[in-house]
C-alpha cells in the first residue's frame, strides 16, 4: 500500500514536471507573442469592439443614444451605400482576374529570363509598389491632365483631339490603369517565388517528352500554383471591395459623388458629416460582405481541388 502510494506520488510529481515543461514552453511562447498581442488587441480588437458598440447608437454631434439595430436597418435601405458597390464589382470582375493573368505571364517570363538579366526587370516592375500613393497621385494628375498630358499628342493624332481624358465615364478605365501599374509587378514577384519552389524534375521530365516552355508553364506549373493564386485572388478581392486610395486621389481632379466606393462613403459619412455611428454600422456590413466573398472564393476553389480536375 505504501509502495502504491509512493508510486502514485512519484507519478504525480513526474506529471507535474511534464506539465511544468509544457507550461514553461507555453509561457515562453506567450512572452514572445506578447508585444504583438498587446498591439493587436489595442489597435485591432478593441477598436472593432468599440465599432460594434458605436453602431448600436444614434448620434448627433457629441450626443449619443441607444437605438439597437436601427442603424443596420437604415443601411439596408440606403441606396447610396449599395450603389457604391459598382466600382468594387467592376474591379473584382475585371481588374483582379486581368491583373492575375498578366502577373502569371510576367512571372513565367521572370523564370525564363532568370539567367539573362531577369533581376533587372523584377526590380523595376516591383518599384511602383514602393512609391507612396500621394506621390503617384500627383504624377498621375499630370499624366491625365488635358493640357499637359504626354499622351495628348498621341490622342490628337488618333483623331480624338476634342475628347477630355479625365471624365467620369473614363474614370473606371483610368482606375484600372493606375491599379494595374501599381500592383502587377508585386503580384508577379509573389507568383515567381512560388514558381521557383516547384521541383525542377517536373519541367525536366516534360521537356524530355517534347513539351515547349509555354506548354509546361500552363499545363504543369500553373495547376501547382493554385494555392498561391487563390490567396492572391482573395487578397486582391478584399482590396477591390475596400478600395479607397486611388479613387480618393482622383476625386481631387474630377467631381466624384461621396459614395463612389463603399469605403469613400463610409469615410465621408464619418468625417465630412460627423455620422460616426452610422459609418460604424456600414463598416461592419462591409467587413461582413468582404468576409463572405472571401469565404465563397476559398470554398469553391478548395472544392475544385478536392473533386480533382480530370486533365
Amino acid at each position: 500500500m505504501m509502495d502504491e502510494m509512493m508510486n502514485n506520488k512519484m507519478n504525480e510529481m513526474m506529471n507535474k514536471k511534464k506539465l511544468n515543461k509544457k507550461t514553461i514552453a507555453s509561457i515562453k511562447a506567450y512572452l514572445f507573442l506578447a508585444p504583438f498581442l498587446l498591439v493587436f488587441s489595442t489597435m485591432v480588437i478593441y477598436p472593432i469592439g468599440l465599432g460594434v458598440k458605436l453602431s448600436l447608437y444614434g448620434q448627433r454631434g457629441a450626443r449619443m443614444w441607444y437605438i439597437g439595430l436601427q442603424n443596420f436597418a437604415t443601411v439596408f435601405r440606403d441606396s447610396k451605400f449599395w450603389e457604391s458597390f459598382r466600382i468594387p464589382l467592376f474591379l473584382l470582375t475585371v481588374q483582379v482576374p486581368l491583373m492575375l493573368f498578366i502577373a502569371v505571364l510576367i512571372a513565367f517570363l521572370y523564370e525564363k529570363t532568370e539567367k539573362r538579366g531577369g533581376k533587372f526587370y523584377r526590380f523595376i516592375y516591383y518599384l511602383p509598389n514602393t512609391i507612396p500613393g500621394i506621390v503617384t497621385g500627383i504624377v498621375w494628375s499630370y499624366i491625365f491632365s488635358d493640357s499637359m498630358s504626354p499622351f495628348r499628342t498621341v490622342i490628337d493624332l488618333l483623331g480624338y483631339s476634342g475628347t477630355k481624358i479625365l471624365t467620369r465615364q473614363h474614370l473606371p478605365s483610368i482606375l484600372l490603369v493606375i491599379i494595374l501599374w501599381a500592383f502587377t509587378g508585386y503580384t508577379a514577384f509573389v507568383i515567381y517565388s512560388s514558381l521557383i519552389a516547384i521541383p525542377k524534375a517536373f519541367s525536366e521530365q516534360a521537356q524530355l517528352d517534347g513539351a515547349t516552355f509555354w506548354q509546361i508553364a500552363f499545363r504543369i506549373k500553373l495547376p501547382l500554383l493554385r494555392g498561391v493564386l487563390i490567396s492572391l485572388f482573395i487578397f486582391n478581392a478584399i482590396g477591390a471591395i475596400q478600395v479607397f486610395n486611388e479613387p480618393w486621389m482622383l476625386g481631387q481632379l474630377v467631381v466624384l459623388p461621396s459614395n463612389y466606393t463603399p469605403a469613400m462613403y463610409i469615410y465621408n459619412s464619418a468625417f465630412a458629416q460627423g455620422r460616426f455611428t452610422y459609418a460604424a454600422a456600414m463598416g461592419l456590413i462591409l467587413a461582413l460582405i468582404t468576409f463572405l466573398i472571401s469565404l465563397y472564393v476559398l470554398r469553391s476553389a478548395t472544392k475544385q481541388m478536392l473533386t480533382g480536375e480530370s486533365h
Partner: protein
Amino acid sequence: MKRLILIALVLILVGISAFAADYYPKYSGKPTTITMWAWTSNENYSIEEFEKVYPNIKVKWENFDVHYEKVQTALSAGSGLPDVLMVEYSFAPQFMDLGAFQPINKWLDEKTFIKLYGEAAMGWCAMDGEIYGTPQDSGAMTMFYRKDLFDQYGLIVPKTKKEFIEQARKFKKAAPHLKYMAAPIGNTMWWIGQVWEAGGKLFDYSNGKWYINFSNPVAVEVFETWGQLFDEGVFDLEMWWNPDWFNSLNEGTTAVVINGSWFAEWLRYNAPESEGKWRVAIPPQWNPAKPNNGMLGGSGFYVTSHSKNPEAAAIFVNWLNSHPASLKCLHNYSNLPIMVSSRYEEVLDEVAGPDAFFGGQNIVETLWEAHQLVNTTFVVLPIMSNVDESLSLLLQDYADGKIKRFADILPRWEKEVISTMKEFGYSNVITGKLP
C-alpha cells in the same frame, strides 16, 4: 486759453481711449493658456502683440491645415477641441448646429459686435442671437483680369453684367483659342456667390427655422443667364483647382477670374510667371444703381464648447480680429488682403500701397471697396458638404450633356438638398419662401 485747449485735448484723448477700451474688456481670470487650431500662416505675430496687452493669457497655436475631420472626431468624442477654432464661414453653421461652439455674448455683446464687424457678419458668427466667434478675413468677390490680354484685344473693364457678356463675346471672336473666363464645375460657394452678387440668396435661417427656396426670381435669373452663355458657347464649365486650371492661369490662356479677395495672395505665390500682368476690379454689377457683392470663403474664429476658459478665448478672438495692431500683422505677415472688421479702415493707409505683382495697382483699396459692397448676408445650411456635392454632380451632368437646360439644375438641386436635410433629422425646414 492755451490751458483750456490743452485740457480739452486731454479730455478728448481720454474719451477716445476710454471708448476704445470698451471694445476690449479687462481679463478678470487667473493666468491661463488657451489653445487654438488655425491654418492662417504666421499668426504668431498677432499672438505676440496680443500677449503684450494681455500678459495673463498665453495662446498656444497648432496648425493642422484645414482640419474639419479632426473637429468632427473630437466633437463626437466629447473632448479634444481647442479653445479657439478656425472655421470657414460656409461651414460654421454646421458646427454651430452640432454644438461645437459656446456663446460669448457675455464678453462681446451684439451692439459691440455689429460696431466692430458689421451686421452682415452676424450671419457668419451667430445663430439665434448667440454670438460664437469673430470673423477674420473677407472673401469679397473680386474680378481678377489680365491687363495684357485686355490691351492686346482692345477690351474694357466691364462695370455691368451686360458689358461683361458683350466683352466675353468680343473676346471669343477675337481669340477663340483663349478663354475669357471659366465657370467652375463644383465650387458651390462660387455659384451661391453669383446669386449673392445679384442681391439674392438660396437659403437662410431665422427664429429656429431653416428656409430653403432655390426658385426665387433672382436665382432663376442668374442661372438662366449663365445657361444662355453656355448655350452660346461664350463660356465653358471647367474644373478649378486642378493642374489644367493652374496651368492656364500661369500661361495666360484665361483672361478673367472672379474669385474671393484672398485669391490675390494665391496668384502671387502660385502664378509667378504672370507677375505684373494682373489687375483687380469690382465684379461687374447686375444693377449699377443698386451695387451688391457676395463672398467666397474667408474664415471666422470661434470659441468651442470644450473650452474651459471661454472668457480668455472670447477676449482673444475679439482682439485678434478687430484690433488694428493685430489687423496690421494679419495683412503683413499672414498675407490676408482684407479683414472684415470695420477697424481695418484705421490701418488701411498704412497697409495699402502700390503692389508690384499687380503692376503697381493699389489692390487693397479696390478689395476694401469690394468688401464694403457686401451688404446682405444669410446663414448657410448646416449640410454644406452635401449641398456642394449635389450641385457639383449636377454641373458635371450638365457638362456631360445629361441635362439640357442649365436652369433645370436649380429645382433638382433644391430637391436633393431638402431630402438631405430630412435625412439628417432636420424637422424645422420651411420650403418655398425666404425670411
